[in-house]
């Protein structure tokens, strides 16, 4: 997994609540069997009209935000399906950090598995950052994971909380599966114990 330590970049404001995974990437774009190439489909309906032409009013189509790497958005971002294509699409586009009052659970997990940082902040602070982000290319934020701190364009700082294990994995770019396989003996003894205690659990075929 890609490491996440510190990120400086343009932040795009998208002040809508309940942005669902179908909005992030519609189901018809989930037919690839690869992990990449989803960037052009990100926010498809918001981003393109019926003819597939860019909607100039959509934030990521505006010159200042075409290379945005941070998104500041509304609560319950990523609600809906479990499709990891949603964080893949954001990541493929270049967005590595999303800041919102809250996120849907499955999306939240999925994003971290891809080395992305999601930050929860109270609405008042989101409002401040949204205003900052509206300043176009001048709206550069610096997100420092080690210090758990966002530096605003005016130099002001906002602190954020994060689960210590998620932080540890991001900072070191750790592969979850590799970590878990180090506990192979524990998994093995759990399996042995349960095969005896609850024989109906195994060999269901």
């Amino acid at each position: 997994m890609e490491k996440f330590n510190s990120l400086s970049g343009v932040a795009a404001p998208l002040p809508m609540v309940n942005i669902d995974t179908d909005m992030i990437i519609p189901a018809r774009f989930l037919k690839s069997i690869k992990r990449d190439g989803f960037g052009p489909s990100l926010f498809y309906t918001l981003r393109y009209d019926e003819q597939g032409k860019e909607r100039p009013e959509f934030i990521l189509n505006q010159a200042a935000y075409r290379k945005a790497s941070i998104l500041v958005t509304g609560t319950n971002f990523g609600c809906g399906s479990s499709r990891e294509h949603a964080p893949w699409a954001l990541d493929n586009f270049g967005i590595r950090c999303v800041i919102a009052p809250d996120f849907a659970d499955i999306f939240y997990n999925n994003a971290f598995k891809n080395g992305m940082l999601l930050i929860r902040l109270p609405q008042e602070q989101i409002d401040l950052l949204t205003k900052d982000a509206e300043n176009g290319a001048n709206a550069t934020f610096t997100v420092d994971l080690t210090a758990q701190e966002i530096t605003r364009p005016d130099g002001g700082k906002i602190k954020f909380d994060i689960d210590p294990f998620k932080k540890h994995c991001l900072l070191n770019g750790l592969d979850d599966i590799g970590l878990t396989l180090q506990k192979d003996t524990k998994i093995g003894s759990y399996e042995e114990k349960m095969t005896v205690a609850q024989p109906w659990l195994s060999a269901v075929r």
Partner: protein
Amino acid sequence: MAGPRTLFDKIWDAHLVDQQADGTCLIFIDRHLVHEVTSPQAFDGLRNTGRKVRRPDLTLCVPDHNVPTENRDKGIEEEESRIQVDALTRNCEEFGLTLFGMDDIRQGICHVIGPEQGFTLPGVTMVCGDSHTATHGAFGSLAFGIGTSEVEHVLATQTLIQTKAKNMLVKVEGALPVGITAKDMILAIIGKIGTAGGTGCVIEYAGEAIRNLDMAGRMTVCNMSIEGGARAGLIAPDETTFEYLKGRPMSPKGATWEAAEAYWKTLPSDPGAKYDIEVVLNARDITPMVTWGTSPEDVVAITGAVPDPAKIADEGKRKKMERSLAYMGLKPGMAMQDVKIDKMFIGSCTNSRIEDLRAAAVVAKGRKVAGHVQALVVPGSGLVKEQAESEGLDKIFTDAGFEWRDAGCSMCLAMNNDRLKPGERAASTSNRNFEGRQGPGGRTHLLSPAMAAAAAIKGHLADVREFDA
């Protein structure tokens, strides 16, 4: 021994393989359902690292999202869909996994076939790369959706890294009025708690109205937990659960069944168990529900009207409502029963079981679908289809002008050819009314199977209570 525990606490404790000092847990996964859309990248990951599937015996694979619901014998016309389904077949061969392929009578929507086969059992942990995995919670199984990275993690290790969610109790007291279904109940619950009301929680559904539901109804309720923000929903196992499971192909048999049942009876929450959040509804207040907007929380009684954004104080919510109404092409104050539909869809992991089809057939029998409506009935599995045909339901539907299709996810998310055209409006028994969910520009009203059939016949949203059986 700790104090009184909830059903969720008990399942969690029984599956803990390891707990780190920071609270991060490693839990064992007893059942893994795999479908074609969210798995190919996970299998690639295994190949790239030379890893195997740790427990093929706990893994069941089925194509459902992409499969066509007509002319199956011709295969899958669309190339990308075919590639995904073929990839699943190849991956199952390579990693030695059980597959119910497109030509297998047992093929169907993963959340329909798991229970049908007895793969789903009380007290197990169960995952799938699909958010509606919560369905299986109807059996008292801790079941939740995961992303593709986690699918790979489960394939490789049969475990997941998790932090424990909060306990939430949703109690529905009293008995449901006649004609009110599990779908109306869960829509009412989501309307009350909101689409993020269960975020960070596992919801346990309890109370007389829940207890009185059959397994299909319980699955409908648990299925839409995710629409209320909760990754999992649970209902304590009881005689209704055991009755359903006994004799299923993968259910335990003989003495093992006896031992399993004895264990399952210890699972219900202890008296005095603590919940972080409690919500109570009275079943008598629930009426047939429909959605008016583009979030599952946008619910209203069928006797109600489209809400007015001008009356919403909160700016964010008002904007969201204005956007929804513009997308849906609805005006504030319009009676829901005046909303004309173009298509009707009975199907999806929410409502495609034999009980759902029977409820719709009662309304359809001897009537005709309105001339301007295309109505699709898509059974949840090949076996549901077979059962329905043995009861003559297919004949009732086709005589009334409904199309009788093959099993799959179909128009719930429109990954196959079943979809809405821009601007078309559907009465749908599925679970999401998001913008573009059933096709770009398509408009969705969620409702129960009986209400969907009523809408197809009237040509507009209608109150099923006005239909005589």
